[in-house]
């Protein structure tokens, strides 16, 4: 599933534009704790999280996540937006809850 399609399925608002919206996404890491995201061991994945902190951006950079989706309509701080821009990590916010977001993205797993 392409990143743009993931965003569409989540009804997400784009806050930091992806350089490559057609990049292929094969999985997602859903967690509110940074260590859990760091432990994912996944590739070509996006982060779904309710955690609003600049550390989410640095964590995404460390694990090489392809995008971050904030759930429950949470809005990032301007600092987070700036960090995401600096690291070139696309950032979105979706009104959906974490579980609901996962359900919508289930095809990511089934398609494999």
């Amino acid at each position, binding site marked *: 599933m392409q990143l743009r399609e993931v965003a569409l399925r989540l009804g997400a608002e784009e806050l930091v534009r992806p350089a490559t919206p057609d990049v292929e996404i094969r999985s997602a890491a859903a967690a*509110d*704790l*940074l*260590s*859990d995201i*760091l*432990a*994912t*061991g*996944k590739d070509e994945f996006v982060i779904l999280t309710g*955690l609003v*902190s*600049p*550390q*989410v951006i*640095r*964590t995404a*950079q*460390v*694990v*090489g996540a392809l995008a971050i989706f904030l759930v429950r*309509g*949470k*809005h990032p*701080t*301007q*600092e*987070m*937006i*700036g*960090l995401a*821009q*600096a*690291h070139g990590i696309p950032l979105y916010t979706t009104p959906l809850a974490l579980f609901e977001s996962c359900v919508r993205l289930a095809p990511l797993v089934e398609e494999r």
Partner: protein
Amino acid sequence: MSVIGAANGFSVAHELVYTLKVRDAMQKDLVTVTPGTTLREVQGLLREHRISGTPVLENDLLVGIVSLEDIINALDHGHIEESVGRWMTREVVTIQENMPLRRAVEFFQRYQYGRLPVVDAEGRLCGILTQADIVVRLMLELNRMAEEAARRETELLAQAGAATTSGPAVTMEFSVNAGDFDNAGIASARIKSALQERGVDLKVARRAAIATYEAETNIIIHSIGGSVKAQIDADRITIEAADWGPGIEDVERALRPGFSTASELVRAMGFGAGMGLPNIQKCADRFRIESTPGTGTRLHVEIDFDSTTSDGGE
């Protein structure tokens, strides 16, 4: 104004309407007329400058305001050739330039005007403010804040951990301060990009970055301060994270997945899953931890460039 008034998630904008002043948002290039100007001339001016109203000045004093609505009425009732003085609105609500924008938002909510003339301390007209001006100013300010953060981050990444090269080995050192969450992840980002620049396998670089990040955050959260050192050799990276205390009493317990002494506050920031040390171990080809209560903790991590260890898997 709904953009500011209604949105709960817009706390930054909320704060900004208190700190920014009316003068920061107002338009300073003014189109003004005098009472002697004809409404026909005003019509032309409004069209030319794409505005919906203009203040009326007499001897530099604000005596009224004339709007598109007045022009439409004049066309309707056939007095478009008459002068402004007779048809302008005389009771003009103005706002002081040094008021917080929040006041202007209130004004716009209270009165149904599209624009507010702005006056200085002496009551002289110095600008004009519309709701759109406020929105534009807020958007610009928000962008500026994000750009500022992006610039700071790029600078941090460029400056942190000055590398020294001796033969094939590169050494980088980062000091890590207690409680300094703002800088958590800088060492790991630098180390990751240094490895990628060397053409090290992305998965290996990622494991080094994860281990470094967890080590950094442990020093920030649990210690009184320390440092992270990385040495990149031809075939491996060695990461040493050391701090000056307080040390760990029961190292075996600290290594247990899920064990954490992090406070609620730290947990709310997303740290303190009790998975840091286990994550580091998983990423390392060789791992050592030494800790003496009162003296400090020292982590030693080695990752081989040709290793096939994985950093995760559920």
